[in-house]
């Protein structure tokens, strides 16, 4: 239980930080956008139809980009703003950018709900356009604006779940990593409960505030509290609320900036990993590194592309998740220059039973799933060839594709799937070639359960990678030493029971 709370604590804080900061910043900018959409339209108090058309178009474009794509697409912008493209702070940037047009539209709707006559009345009193915006539009729309911001905040909570893609952490990432990919039902349920509590809280607070500002009668929870004299919001204290909100905003933004600034001062060694087993091995050797004064920050990735992109961009200093054939191919495809500096371990690729339990029982026309990334796909085919199930015209070369199958006596139907999906596909296939990290997460014991396993001499040892400029960084050298230490060896052998083997 305490283990669960410990696991939940940091992601919860990360989610709160991401949502709070992005809600505040997108709230301010989005409100400005919403106001402009209303006042610049033809006949508005600051009529500028061309500007209105441009803003409308931008809002529509912004609204139509799926968040997950936006997050990756604006990586250069993110790096320009906060200095890095991964981590919780970096995740705030796409959250803000994605939320601005959304906030803008909701604010526009709220302001259009203000009686047109009130606007005309204040104009006849000799109001400047700015006074019309501040004293009529914004003040009169407060209840509607509060409701709009409630919706935005709730939406940001769900958007923040995708932050894991760029190492942003948070509850959504926890649920995906441990709950979905790691088959830890308890964590998934706990995460969902925390999210429900969070969203209920936001909605409750939003409704309470909106009803308070509606100024109709005295019904509602705040009025109830007022009657009991626990808490009073008079016009005087509402100016406190206003200044308090402003202070919160300043603290939020300032805190973020300070966080970004200070973290670049400390300069921890940032190492990108897949959570299992790479992350676990790295965590195990961190005390050794701390003793040497090397502070390591582990950045978790759930895919195989981002860790290398982040490394090439300088967002992380090293990564540990890949083998050399994959790295070579990545360098070729992306024009990067990532180098391997140390073999750490090998995770043998295995063929795991689905509808068919043994190799010999595989029927004619059996369906076999293999990973769909180019390297592991070829590696899977080589594994199948090693058991004589198929024959490849390229022999034992790496970089093999499905088109290279020259003999298939059992008429196997080989289908390629996203690596992380393979354990979940087992009900629907006869067998699947699964990377050990995903097999372990799915509670397989590779030594016992695999129908077929790569042997430990495989060229596919996982390596610590970095870029040439950092290869001689003493901290990287310290990392290399720690990963190839006896502590690491003992940990790997004991923890993984031979399913993962030291490769040094």
């Amino acid at each position, binding site marked *: 239980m305490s283990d669960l709370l410990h696991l939940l604590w940091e992601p919860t804080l990360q989610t709160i930080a991401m949502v709070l900061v992005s809600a505040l910043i997108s709230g301010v900018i989005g409100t400005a956008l919403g106001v402009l959409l209303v006042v610049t339209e033809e006949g508005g108090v600051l009529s500028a139809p061309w500007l209105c058309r441009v803003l409308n178009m931008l809002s529509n474009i912004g609204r139509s980009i799926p968040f997950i794509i936006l997050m990756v697409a604006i990586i250069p912008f993110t790096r320009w703003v906060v200095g890095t493209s991964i981590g919780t702070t970096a995740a705030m940037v796409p959250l803000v950018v994605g939320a601005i047009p959304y906030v803008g539209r909701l604010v526009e709707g709220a302001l259009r709900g203000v009686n047109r*006559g009130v606007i005309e009345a204040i*104009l*006849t009193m000799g109001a400047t356009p700015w006074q019309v915006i501040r004293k009529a539009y914004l003040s*009169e729309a407060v209840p509607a604006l509060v409701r709009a911001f409630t919706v935005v905040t709730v939406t940001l909570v769900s958007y923040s779940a995708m932050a894991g893609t760029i190492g942003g952490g948070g509850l959504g990432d926890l649920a995906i990593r441990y709950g979905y990919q790691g088959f830890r039902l308890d964590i998934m349920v706990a995460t969902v409960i925390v999210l429900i509590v969070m969203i209920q809280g936001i909605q409750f607070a939003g409704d309470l505030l909106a009803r308070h500002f509606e100024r109709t*009668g005295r019904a509602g929870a705040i009025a109830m509290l007022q009657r009991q004299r626990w808490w009073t919001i008079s016009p005087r204290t509402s100016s406190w609320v206003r200044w308090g909100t402003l202070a919160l905003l300043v603290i939020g933004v300032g805190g973020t900036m300070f966080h970004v600034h200070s973290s670049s001062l400390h300069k921890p060694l940032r190492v990108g990993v897949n959570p299992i087993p790479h992350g676990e091995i790295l965590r195990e050797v961190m005390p050794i590194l701390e003793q040497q004064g090397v502070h390591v920050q582990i950045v978790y990735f759930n895919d195989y592309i981002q860790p290398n992109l982040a490394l090439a961009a300088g967002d992380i200093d090293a990564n540990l998740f890949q083998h050399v054939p994959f790295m070579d191919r990545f360098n070729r495809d992306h024009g990067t220059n990532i180098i391997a500096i140390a073999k750490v371990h090998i995770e043998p690729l295995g063929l795991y039973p689905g509808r068919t339990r043994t190799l010999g029982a595989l029927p004619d026309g059996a369906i076999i799933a293999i990973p769909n990334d180019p390297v592991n796909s070829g590696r899977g085919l080589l594994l199948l060839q090693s058991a004589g199930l198929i024959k490849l015209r390229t022999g034992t070369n790496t970089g093999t594709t499905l088109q290279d199958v020259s003999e298939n006596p059992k008429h196997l139907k080989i289908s390629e799937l996203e690596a992380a999906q393979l354990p979940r596909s087992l009900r629907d296939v006869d067998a699947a070639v699964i990377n050990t990290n995903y097999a372990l997460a799915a509670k397989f014991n590779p030594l016992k359960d695999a129908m077929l396993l790569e042997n430990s001499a495989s060229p596919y040892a996982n390596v610590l990678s970095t870029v040439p400029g950092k290869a001689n960084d003493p901290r990287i050298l310290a990392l290399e030493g720690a990963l190839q230490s006896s502590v690491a060896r003992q940990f790997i052998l004991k923890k993984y029971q031979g399913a993962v083997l030291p490769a040094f």
Partner: protein
Amino acid sequence: MPNDSRRRSAPDDRAASVLISPPAVLLENITKRYRQGSDWSNAITRINLSVSQGTIQGVIGFSGAGKTTLLRCISFLELPDEGRVLIDGTDLAQMNGEQLRSARRRLGVVFQQLHLLRSRTVAQNVALPLELAGYAPATINERVAELLTWFGLEAKADQYPSQLSGGQQQRVAIARALATRPAVLLSDEPTSALDPETTASVLELLRRVRDELGVTILLITHELSAVRAICDRVAVLDQGAIVEEGPVEDVLLRPATRTTQRLLGRGLGADRVADYLGEREVHAGSVFLELQFLGKNATSHVISALIRTFDVTLDILRADIGELNQSTYGFLLVELGGHSDTQERSIGFLEAHGAIVKRIDSWSQAQRDGRPE
């Protein structure tokens, strides 16, 4: 330029100042067109109106007569296509920026739906025009307190509009419109949504605004009772044009146009007489008359004197007696029986005693016989 001393002046002084001051509101030839599909139609056509300072000027018309368009042109929410609007001697169309905003404060507008700000308390609503004008908070508080006291709203200062009755909301709206000490108050249908008692108190309040604060009031309405109760002069609007304008007594007692007569609910001739007559027998040789009295000519005195003096019968079919701008007026529809000679002399007697007599000539026995049952 107007100043406090003028605004605070007693009604008697005002009479003198009218002669030398420019009109508070001057509408010159204003025309406004609206597009309807591919056609343009005139919402108002060549409106000319001059409202002297200190006057309560009514503008009355049925709905669709162009009242709203007129209001929007006067309050400068829309520019007329032709002609110009001068408020207190200034043409807003010639101004822009801060000059325009400051000139707008010379005209207070009370809209039909009031348009109070829901998010502001009564005091904050009244303070709004002062805030917009950039007064210091201390000045604003002082002025707001003064206005709330004047309008009897001190106890409501910290309440929100949604917590007030219709009459109270109306008072808040008037107080707000007067916050910047405008020369002219434009009031749109001030009594349309109120019960009779509240209507009377709101109208009385408007009269006090004129009498005690010296503000010229332009009252746009479709309700005759409001015009009767407080207006000095009235303009009758029909199909976008002013068809009749003059002192209330003249226009309402001697309506010159059919529109005014329709507004008054009379002058519809024989059919109306038949309606009031009902199933009653008509005496042979009797005539029907419309009698109007005003002020000191107490109606009943004249009628009883007539009956004592001449050998005639007089049956009252309809009587409408009430207040018109603080003096009594009477309107009677009567059937006068007797010798035609005596009838003529009786009419002379009534006219000599200040009654306005109108013979309903179209009435005849033949028409009555032909009336469908």
